[in-house]
């Protein structure tokens, strides 16, 4: 089985979000970048396929050279090969188009993306790759088993889950549940050493003009101070008469 895991290079979840250049771009100053958490669950699931059923795992990213440490981390976790598509990730559509091209070329059986990236929360790249290439697609995937060409996927729905029977080639939008948080792997020294000699191929981008453009960013308005109350009667009164939510 040939697996591609699409990796988004995103600010760590603890990052303070600030903007620069007249609020037109994200301020990366002092920000630690990581593998997008939703993608990391998928990467770990891919490692299990590799170890239990045999698979080759490639990690793909659209971005400049600054994303390479994130790809190296994925290699240190156990991916066999990394491919960086050398262009700025401008909007979800153009990223999907770049990835769709590499996916088609690579003839992957399974493409794992995250449900959404935690930076722009687009949640569109896996679905678009699937649609562009005519592949099966399961979003918000929290469980996946593959036998031969057949796949059983569990999808999180509002208020529950559903089991979906589908087949390869398949694209999933993954999230926590594919593996548990405690299953995530921290690269060990051996993995880090090996990662240095694993191939990281830089591919030139194909023509893919973005459909949307970012104009500017805003931070939420500062919040007023919390109203502390002494007893539950007062709280109920405020929720009913002031906030009008009960």
């Amino acid at each position: 089985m040939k697996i591609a895991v699409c990796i988004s290079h995103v600010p760590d979840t603890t990052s303070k979000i600030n903007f620069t250049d007249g609020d037109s771009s994200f301020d990366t100053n002092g920000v630690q970048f990581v593998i997008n958490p939703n993608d990391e669950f998928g990467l770990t699931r891919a490692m299990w396929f590799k170890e239990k059923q045999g698979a080759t795992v490639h990690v793909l990213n659209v971005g400049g050279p600054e994303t390479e440490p994130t790809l190296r981390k994925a290699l240190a976790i156990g991916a066999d090969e990394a491919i960086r598509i050398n262009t700025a990730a401008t909007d979800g559509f153009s990223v999907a188009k770049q990835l769709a091209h590499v996916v088609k070329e690579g003839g992957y059986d399974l493409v794992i993306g995250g449900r959404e990236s935690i930076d722009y929360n687009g949640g569109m790249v896996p679905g678009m790759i699937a649609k562009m290439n005519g592949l099966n697609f399961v979003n918000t995937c929290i469980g996946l088993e593959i036998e031969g060409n057949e796949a059983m996927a569990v999808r999180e729905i509002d208020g529950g889950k559903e089991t979906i029977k589908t087949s390869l080639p398949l694209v999933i939008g993954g999230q926590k549940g594919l593996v548990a948080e405690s299953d995530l792997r921290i690269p060990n020294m051996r993995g880090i050493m090996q990662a240095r000699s694993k191939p990281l191929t830089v591919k030139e981008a194909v023509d893919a003009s973005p459909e949307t453009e970012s104009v500017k960013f805003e931070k939420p308005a500062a919040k007023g101070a919390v109203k502390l109350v002494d007893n539950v009667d007062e709280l109920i009164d405020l929720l009913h008469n002031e906030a009008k939510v009960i």
Partner: protein
Amino acid sequence: MVLVYTESEEGKLKKIALEAVSYAKGIADAMGGSVTAVAVNTSDTSELGKYGASKVLQVSNSELDTFKAETFADIISQAAKAEGAKVVVLSSSANSKFIAPLVAVNLEAGYVPNVVELPQSTDPFKLKHTVFTNKAFAITQVNTEVKVIGLGKNSYGLKENETPLTTETFSPNISGSGAEVVSIDKATDTVTIADAEIVVSGGRGLKGPENWGMIEELASVLGAATACSKPVSDMGWRPHSEHVGQTGKPVASNLYIAIGISGAIQHLAGINASKVKVVINNDPEAPFFKAADYGIVGDAFEVVPQLTEKLKAFKAQNA
């Protein structure tokens, strides 16, 4: 012309569908057009006119009783083409978020999810939406002829706008799907986080899964969904599906009550879209107090049962 996909469940329109119609009407008014809704296997669509739809395309087909993203996306795309829609509005349910990128590719349309208000301008077409999991907003310009909008839950609200509604039967080509639902496992007796107007959430301060009875009881009095913080789901006290935060579920309820949750930045991001936040925590230094509207510094094991009792009385009085 604005097309809106109005989701239903077991034949009944969902509240988010009516919110999406309200929003679509706002855009139609700004652009000088009307709203057409597309409804699949929905028994009663008369309510759509109340929120501003002029036309509903009714699709009835027993093959569509189970959700198939690709097939539904193809139906919506066909409806958009038939109506000459310039804007397609979807909600932020799990199903709509599944469909939206597929519709966008079908229609060669730019797609913006998590939109929080009407376009700032319609030429150029500029949308405000949440990014960085509610830690910020972005203004994004959509440059394609057709636009697909994912409306953030509870961000626009229901707006009545009585409009004469005509109903048409719509018979699209039903495309096959390579993915087939074989079973659904869904609690029918509890409120889901996605649909809930009130969410009651517990953290590590509750000390163990055996203490969740009081959370459930409070939720039941309020007709609320239950949720939890990440450590609680990681320790297996509660199922992953209840985990609220940056890597869990986002919550955009009217009221969010956090009990024994300190308020890590990732948790606060996940609940930031909720309108009113209440924190109950015995540590006055807990970061959640900075993010909340109302707070009680106190022991959850004393405060929560009291709150439940008093709310029961309040509900009885205001019933």
